[in-house]
């Protein structure tokens, strides 16, 4: 007798090592409950500014629906290159050092695939965005978590970085302003990291997608540091700054050798980023500053509202200086992140993602996205307050 066919034995071994997403599981829980106020959404609650949408509609009406260059529209690459020159005094050649991708997600994937050999170690600072560790595993690399702590304002410290570097270390991945902590790193903080990068001959993948959402002082672009332009694969995109998540548009900047290797994967897997999104991105860079700044000012107000509110409730909250997340400690309640999130959801219908979904060092914290209306934030704070009071 033949054994029944089992498709699961065909799944590649590599995927067995990928941990299931904590967010996915939480998503399923939230979907079962009605009238939830969600602080769990990692995307803007604004609609893409009308001038960008209108430009896209116009382009479709005029039949701009074909493939673009694999690298992306030259016009867009030029705009990106000019912006970096203007804002950060870093020059990138639009012809060979800019690659337009389908979201920063794709840029991250092909950046890692372009440089990681099987067995290479890649340091991933945590708590951080959920895709870094799996992306390293997909390319046969070994992810090495680097925990940051609230005591150090969730910055990477030189000592802690040195501790996890081995002779197999190929690269380090980090993200400032940071999802989920809202932490930022100043120029001097980053310079200390750059010294170690040179000393150990590493590459850096710097995900700066929250660059525009910086509330105190200016963002420092990692590639703008001395000697870092060639060593950095800089990732950025349009989702957060211009509320364009569904357009799926990002880009990577780096040395021509690296960008052309990423391009090799990109041309055979993606061919090119969606043309309509690229046209919208050109409009965003040319005429989107005022609307973007307006959204940033609104996030800034909500930031004050939620951080003040959480601290008042007794959930000690580190002051986030970028992105749109507050990351309060829930340790004082005696619950784990997971217990806190689940009970808050079931008892008060507020969704916020448990901190450990972003790495072990996120345990004891809760990610509260303030990309939600002021009314929703106020109601959520009331409910969280009631929940915490009930625990006493």
């Amino acid at each position: 007798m033949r054994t029944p066919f089992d498709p699961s034995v065909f799944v590649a071994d590599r995927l067995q090592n990928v941990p299931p997403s904590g967010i996915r599981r939480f998503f399923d829980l939230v979907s079962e409950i009605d009238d939830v106020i969600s602080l769990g959404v990692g995307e803007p609650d604004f609609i893409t500014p009308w001038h960008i949408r209108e430009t896209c509609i116009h382009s479709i009406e005029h039949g701009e629906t074909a493939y673009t260059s694999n690298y992306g529209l030259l016009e867009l690459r030029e705009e990106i290159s000019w912006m970096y020159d203007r804002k950060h005094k870093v020059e990138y050649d639009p012809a060979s050092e800019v690659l337009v991708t389908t979201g920063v997600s794709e840029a991250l994937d092909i950046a890692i695939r372009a440089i990681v050999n099987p067995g290479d170690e890649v340091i991933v600072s945590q708590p951080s965005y959920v895709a870094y560790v799996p992306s390293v595993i997909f390319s046969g690399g070994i992810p090495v978590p680097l925990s940051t702590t609230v005591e150090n304002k969730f910055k990477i410290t030189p000592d802690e970085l040195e501790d996890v570097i081995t002779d197999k270390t190929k690269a380090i991945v980090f993200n400032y302003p940071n999802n989920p902590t809202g932490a930022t790193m100043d120029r001097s903080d980053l310079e200390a990291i750059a010294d170690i990068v040179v000393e150990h001959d590493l590459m850096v993948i710097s995900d700066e997608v929250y660059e525009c959402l910086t509330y105190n002082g200016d963002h420092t672009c990692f590639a703008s540091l001395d000697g870092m332009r060639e060593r950095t694969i800089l990732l950025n995109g349009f989702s957060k700054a211009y509320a364009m998540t569904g357009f799926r548009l990002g880009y990577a900047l780096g040395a021509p050798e690296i960008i052309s290797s990423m391009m090799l994967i990109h041309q055979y897997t993606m061919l090119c980023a969606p043309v309509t999104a690229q046209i919208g991105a050109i409009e965003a860079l040319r005429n989107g500053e005022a609307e973007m700044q307006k959204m940033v000012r609104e996030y800034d107000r909500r930031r004050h509202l939620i951080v003040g509110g959480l601290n008042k409730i007794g959930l000690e909250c580190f002051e986030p200086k970028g992105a749109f997340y507050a990351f309060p400690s829930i340790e004082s309640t005696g619950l784990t992140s997971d217990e806190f999130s689940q009970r808050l959801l079931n008892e008060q219908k507020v969704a916020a993602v448990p901190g450990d979904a972003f790495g072990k060092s996120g345990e004891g914290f809760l990610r509260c996205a303030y990309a939600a209306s002021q009314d929703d934030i106020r109601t959520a704070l009331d409910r969280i307050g009631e929940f915490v009071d009930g625990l006493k």
Partner: protein
Amino acid sequence: MDKQLSHILEILEGDARAAPKDIASLTGMSVEDVSKKIEQLEKSGIIRKYKTIIDWDLVGESYVYAVIELKVILERKYGYEKIAERLYKFPEVRSVRLLSGGYDIALTVRGKSMKEVAFFVAEKIATLEQVQSTTTHFVLKTYKEDGVILHEPEHIKRLPVSP
């Protein structure tokens, strides 16, 4: 313009009833500082007035609005000031603007009926000696007023949780 000032003005522009306490929690300023700043803004005339946008149609008080274009004869010494003053003193006149282009002044006039507006223009406006001609356009529907879209606001649909 400093950051705190633009926060205060944007908050009040969106909600004239925002209390100093609310503004303080949104800006990280103290309640006293917010109150002081608002007082200064009121005194200096940057904040002119706190206004409520009312949909009178829903109340049952339906008004008729018309945009009136005026060509006027300029007065020596006073320019447009005198005629503008005469016009804006009528309570029926809701706005007065001096414009460049084909005509000189645009008014918005509000009345209970088209007849009332038409008679107001014929009797009170057209008869002013500086007024050369008037053209009356009745407003059929208002889609957007003072930056506020009045019908079918847009909603964004998002997943309840995302990374």
